[in-house]
Each structure stands twice: as C-alpha cells, then as structure tokens.
C-alpha cells in the first residue's frame, strides 16, 4: 500500500461476497467452546461474576484456558453438577439458589451475575433463564442475574461473548436519542482512544457494549446506530435490531486501513463532513502506517495459514495481505457470517482459499502440504507444528491482546512478525 494514499480513496471493489469459494469442513474441531470468553469478559465488566453451571471439565477448561491462575480470587466459578443432581436426589434449582447465596455472601460487591450454561446443563435441560429470573427477583435491586449459554454444543469460542452480549441487550435502558453504540469487548485503552477520536469528529453520544461497569449500560432505541468492533456478534446484532437500532456496515477496526474505514463508516452514518473525518484521522493513520512499515520488512511476501479459531481470521487476513503484503495460503474460520463480513470479503484477494468449519486432521495435511511461512493456530497445535519445523502464532493472543485501532496496528503486526524474527535469531 502506498504510504501516501488517503484511505478514503481506497476503492472497495464490488466483488459479490458470494463469489469467493469456501471449503466447508465437518469433522473434529480443535477449538475452544464459548465458556472461554469468560476469561476476557470478566476482566472487561469489572463488577460482574460468571457462574458456569457445568461439570468438572468446564471448570478445568476455564482454568487451563486462562493459562496461569493469575487471580487468587477470580470473578468466575463453576457450580459443578454431581451425581446426586443427576439422580434427582437434589433439586437443581434449590442447589443453584444455595450456591448463589454462598457466592453473594462472599462477594457482596458483585452487581451483575451471569449463570452460564454448559454442555451438561443443556443436555439435562436445566432452564437457567428461569433460574436467573427467580434469582433476580430475590436479589433486586442489589444484583441482576442473567443467563446465557457458553456450551460447546451451542457456541464456538468467541460465540460465547456473542451469547453474553445478546443476553445483555434486553436489559439495556431504552432511549430514542441519537447515539452511537460500539459493540464487542475492547481493551479499556482502546475504548478511550476510540472515544477521543469520535469526540474529535463530533460524535459525543457514544456507548460501549459491554460497558466496564454493570451500571453503565448504554441506552438503545430507534435513534441508536451500532457498529461492531468484533466480527463474531451475530446474535447480539439481531437482538439490537430487535430493539430498533440499526447496524453501520464496515470492515473491522484492525490495521490502519480497517480502523480508518470503520471510523469513516461511523462518521458517514452521523453525517460528519468527509473533510472533518479526514482531518481527525490523518495523524493517527500516518502514525499507524509508519509503525506498520517497520513490520512490513519482516512480513512482506511471507505466506500465512489460518486454522479456524475466533472468527477474527478474515479481518486479520485482510489486514496482513493488504497492509503488510503477506500472501494468504488458507484462511480458516469456524463460522462465516457473510453479511457482517461483506465489507471484509470485498477487500480480500480474489484467489484466497477460505475454509469454514474444520476437520483438523485433513486441515493439518493441507497445512503441511502448503508449507506456509507462518501458521496461526490454537495452543493444542502450536508446539507440535513447531516441532515439525513450522513457525506458529498462537491465535488466542489475538483475542486477549489490545489489537484494535490505530495505535495498536503496529503491535498487531508485531505479533505476527515476532515468531519469524525469533526463528531467525535462534542459533540452537
């Protein structure tokens, strides 16, 4: 990309998004379930507690996915279903009430409690939405209790966040006022950057979902225009549409170009003059591009292969191919939402191999045959692939790190450059 090209002039080619061929796979899926989202959601909503109603496997998963146990007293826990619950010796609802009592006694600071459904709770048809209603009545107004499913049979990895946010939408206060809502978890530092840029553009009534605190739920109504900050929020978008809000279609705010197009789409939706938007974005765009230029030296011309993980794969691939000159081998995604990704797909190279779903053994065969310079994959696959001589980037870091926005564009590119630089450095 020419360093001086204003991003407003980047023409979005009118490829029909249905034109890109997609390899659909159905087999063993090496992905996390939606419970994993708790790891970042509980950091974001700082007075919320996530109670998984599930098995020892669920508890073990969250603690393993969190990598190390950082927090001696986390704001998540598991109500582990035991034999006597299944045998009907204990009433599941009584048990749940008892556990919530225990929890609230210990953590009276909690304002929002999510009962999170799991595979076993769904298979035994435990109705958590009814339990949430009952508990909400009991603890009102000190505590609100909501429920959603993070089960592996219903949700894949980031879809857990989608389910969580979709559960929040009916709780949002109603307001007919003109407002912008940014939807999807962002790091606090990114949120603040975005707020400043919107304010400079002249958009001041901006809400973020999820908010940092349960009391700061953004209002929604006919005057609300929302823009997705994450590509995996299908259910949340439907719920917001239902509340009368309208979606601003845009690529996702990854990289200088993606972030600029995202802000421009928001600006246009609020009738901000093009010159004003360009003024506000000029400096951060230039800064992001300068940061990217340094990583481009490492990444340009290198091939990259994505295993499906977070649904961020397509926006990331678009960023890496267009702004860093990487060559896309296969771009796998667990689920392809053609409507929300239409602007992204239009920016993808015409010859890209997209794949949706997974049959991990077959995909590993394709990956070995393609012999890419770098593979983006989950933690279960990374070391075995490294041992076979491949260079890998763990995908989970792309979800946990602040990577959105102009100021993080260089950091995002660096996450891909680092494994390659490291491999070149090591003499052992």
């Amino acid at each position, binding site marked *: 990309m020419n360093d001086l090209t204003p991003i407003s002039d980047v023409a979005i080619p009118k490829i029909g998004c249905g034109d890109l061929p997609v390899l659909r796979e159905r087999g*063993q*899926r090496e*992905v*996390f*379930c*939606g419970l994993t989202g708790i790891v970042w959601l509980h950091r974001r909503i700082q007075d919320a507690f996530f109670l998984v*109603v599930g*098995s*020892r*496997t669920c*508890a*073990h998963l969250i603690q*393993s*996915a969190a*990598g*190390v*146990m950082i927090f*001696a*007293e*986390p704001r998540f826990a*598991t*109500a*582990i279903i*035991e*034999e006597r619950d*299944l045998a009907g010796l204990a009433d599941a609802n009584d*048990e*749940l009430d008892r*556990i919530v009592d*225990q929890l609230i006694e210990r953590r009276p600071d909690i304002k929002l409690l999510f009962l999170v459904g799991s*595979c076993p709770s*769904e*298979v*035994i048809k435990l109705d958590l939405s009814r339990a949430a209603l009952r508990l909400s009545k009991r603890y009102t107004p000190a505590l609100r209790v909501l429920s959603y499913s993070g*089960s*592996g*049979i*219903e949700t*894949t990895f980031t879809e857990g966040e989608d389910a969580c946010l979709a559960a929040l939408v009916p709780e949002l206060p109603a307001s007919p006022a003109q407002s912008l809502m940014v939807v999807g978890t962002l790091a606090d*530092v990114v949120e*603040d950057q975005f707020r*400043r840029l919107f304010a400079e553009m002249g958009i001041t009534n901006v809400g973020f979902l999820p908010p940092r605190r349960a009391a700061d739920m953004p209002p929604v109504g006919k005057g609300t225009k929302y823009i997705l900050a994450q590509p995996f929020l299908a259910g949340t978008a439907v719920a917001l549409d239902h509340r009368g809000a309208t979606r601003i279609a845009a690529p996702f705010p990854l990289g200088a170009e993606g972030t600029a197009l995202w802000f421009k789409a928001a600006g246009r939706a609020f009738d901000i003059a093009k010159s004003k938007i360009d003024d506000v974005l000029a400096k951060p765009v230039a*800064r*992001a591009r*300068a*940061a990217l230029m*340094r*990583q481009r030296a490492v990444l340009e011309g290198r091939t990259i292969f994505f295993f499906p993980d977070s649904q961020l794969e397509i926006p990331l691939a678009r960023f890496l191919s267009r702004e860093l000159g990487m060559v896309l081998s296969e771009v796998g995604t667990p689920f392809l939402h053609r409507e929300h990704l239409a602007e992204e797909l239009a920016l993808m190279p015409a010859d890209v191999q997209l794949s949706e779903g997974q049959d991990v053994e077959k995909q590993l065969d394709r990956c070995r045959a393609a012999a890419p310079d770098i593979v983006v994959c989950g*933690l*279960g*696959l*990374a*070391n*075995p692939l*490294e*041992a076979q001589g491949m260079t890998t980037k763990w995908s989970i870091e792309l979800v946990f790190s602040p990577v959105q926005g102009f*100021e993080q564009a*260089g*950091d995002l590119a*660096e996450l891909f450059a680092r494994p390659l630089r490291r491999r070149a450095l090591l003499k052992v």
Partner: protein
Amino acid sequence: MQLTLWTYEGPPHIGAMRIATAMRGVHYVLHAPQGDTYADLLFTMIERRDQRPPVTYTTFQARDLGGDTAQLFKNAVADAYERFKPEAIIVGASCTAELIQDDPAGLALALDLPVPVIPLELPAYQRKENWGAAETFYRLTRGCIGAFPRPARTTDRLVKTCNILGPTALGFRHRDDLHEITTLLGQLGVSINVIAPLNARPSDLARIPDADFNIVLYPEIALNLATWLERQYGQKFINITPIGVGATRDFIAKVAELADIDATAMLTQTASRLNWYSRSVDSTYLTGKRVFIFGDATHAIAAARVAADELGFEVVGLGTYAREFAREIRTAAKLYNIEALVSDDYLTVEAAITAANPALVLGTQMERHIAKRLGIPCAVISAPVHVQDFPARYSPMMGFEGANVLFDSWVHPLMMGLEEHLLGMFREDFEFHGDAAPSHLGGKPVQAQPEPVLTTNQATAIWGADAEAELKKIPFFVRGKARRNTERYAAEQGTALINIETLYNAKAHFSS
C-alpha cells in the same frame, strides 16, 4: 452441586489421556462435545510435548444431537484406526457424552477392528483425574495381557526382575523421578522388565506378569493395577515412595529383599548432600519452622516425613485433595499430632493455611497463590502441574538426588540463615526496617519508594495530566519502559509538554 473456583484435578477422562499420551501405539477415541479438545493444550503447552496427544474427539454440536451421534462416534473410531494404525484403542465418553448414553463400548466393538479395543467407564460426575488414570491403566493392562503373544517365562532366572508402574504424561517430575529410580535399580543390580505407562507399548503391558515384583512409583496411578497383579499373578509390590533420604533407604531395603540381593553397601553410604547440609550450622535456623503441607496424598505424606525428620521443621498442617487416600493421610497426620485436611475446596485450604499461620507452605500451584497472597514462602511439591513443574534441568523429587532438590527448593524460599540474622541485627536501619520482607519473595515494600531524583543536566519534559492518566492504563510491567521511552522521545523532539499525542508518537517511534 459444588461451588468451585479452582479445581485440583481434571475430570477422569483427562487421567485416561495421561495414560494414552504417555504410551506409544495407543489411540484414545473420546466421545465429547466441541470444546473438550482444550485438553490437548495441557500436554502441548504445560508439558511442552512436541506431539499432539493421541486422541480423537467426536466434537459433536447441537445439530448432531438431533441426528445420529452414535454414527459420528463409529466413524471417528474407524477413521482414527485408518489414520493412526494403533496397536490398541481405548474408547470412552466425557461428561456430556456420558449423559447422551451412546454406548461407545458397544459401538466400537461392533466395528470388529483387528486390534484390542478397550472400553472405559469413567463416571465423570463422581470421579476425577487420578482415579481416571488409575482405572485406565488397569483396564488397558488387563485388556492387553493375552491380546499379544509373549515369550514363555523362563522359570529358573538367576536375576530377579521388576516392573516400574506409574509414571505418566503430565506427571509431576515423573520424567526425572523415573531416571533417578532406574539408575538406582541399575546400581543395585536389579533388572527392569517393563516401565509403564511412560513410553510403553500395548505389547509391553502384556509382558508385565513376567516380572518377579512390581514397584508402585505413584500409588495414585498404579496401586489398583499392582493390587490386581498380586492377586492374579502373585507378584509382590513395593509401595514405598522414595522421597527423602529415609524413604529412599527404606525403598532400597525393600527392593533388596524382594530381589534377593545384598544392598548393605548402598544403605551405608551417604549418597545425598541433604544429610550434611541439614546438619551444617547454617541450617540451625530451620529448626521448628512451622510448615503447612498440601498436595496429592503421596507427595504430601512423603514431604511431611522429610520436613519433620530430615529438615527439623514442625508440621502444622497436612492435607490432600485426593479423597481416595483419606485414610493414608489421616494415619500420617497422627504422627505429627494434627488433624488431616481432606478437601478439594480451594477456599477451605486457604482458610486452613491462614489459621495455621505457617512459616513455609509446601503445596501445589494453588497453595503457591494462597501463600503469595498471605506473604508466606512456598515451594511446590505436587500436581496439579504448571509449566514451571517441567524444568529444563534435571530435577527429580525421588532418590538421593531428589533429596538434594528438596533441600534446595524448600530452604531457598525461606530467608537464608545469615540473612535472617543480619535482618535482626540491623532491624532499625532504613534498608532493613522492621517490616522488610526478603527481597526475593516479591513482597511489597512497606515504605513508599522515593521517586528517583532527576539529574539536573537532563532536560525532562513535563507530563500533561491527560498523558499521565493515559500512561496509567498501560500494564504496570511495561509502564516504566513506556515512561522512559516517551521522555526520551520528547527530549529528542524538543517537546516540553508530553500530551497523549506525544505518548503515542513515542510508542509508534519505538515500537518494533
């Protein structure tokens, strides 16, 4: 239901995975929903294994539940056999698949594969990881005995042989313990028939009955099997965990008895430095240090003996998360006149540690967190494992070298004797003020650190309030670097006032 913040053990199918992953030529087909594949990362990330565990998951989803999950399972078994050509297959269900009752055993056997297919029943709502590992090891060995041809046993062998049973994948120091014990048995002149499950093949399991006796290295994993082998084949077994000098000597004596050899030479030599290090005067300060011990039963009981008899500590707490070994831990606790703690509730353990107010905690990674919060020194002695429990260096718990490791790793977290002495002597000096904690414990200094005095010849830009506020949002461990870089950048650019723009310009300038 049980409220759980952290769990000490995974579900039982994780135990089965530890057996399958330890072995060669075994494949495990697990009927499990999407997401259960997280278990792979335990092995590839925590243990840094260079291969994926030999596990195929059916990863069914909601849409499959309406259809035929049983067919999905059958296909997974057939595909796994075709692709991996294992010598034996184990099949089972994880917690969710247990509820949908597809009968993995029946389905897999119906395929009539040309290799042994061993079904596992691991009740996920009653049992846990170690139980699952023990059950899998037992079932798999029973299934393999007779399924593979083995040479007839020679009846008049001169040298007695043993099996070493217990080391698994993802085991706490199993790799190094095994090396230590294998070397020790070599020095004694005892030959080893089979080591299992680590690096064993199914055909090796079939040879287990050939040995004269069994060594149960980890009772949590191998006691069930050893008990059955004794009943079935009359094989005696040794269930002495050789952790610490005394227990290692007891172990050697028992091996010598069963192998019918003379071990006097080895029993009289001083093979560990622990003996002298513990007697040297610097160790005087260890006397009567109050220690709280918690872990799996084997490691906790062994650690208590070492702490009391070999380091001169006072054992003020002893407990385990393994209910299966409650009796053993209660018996051990009586030796120290304390009540054993048997609980897998992290919060109960935390309360017990707080109440005991020990000077040292010997525990798992969970207790390391508790100890850190309470500002108490801690050493890790047991699973659940953490990436730090797979050190690059040789670091066994067992045998004479293991005793050396225990001395170092338990004593170093405590203040060194001389350091403690000096701290008492210079208590009122500003560096050694009364509340100072040893620097290596990472405790927060009680006195506020004075801001570094800036040298006057260095022009430093002033931080604007907005930039200062922004800086605070950067994680603390890189904040110092961000501050220095921004100031350097501001100085280079001749900027007098640092605002947010400067901060991010500097970030962009130095990033790469």
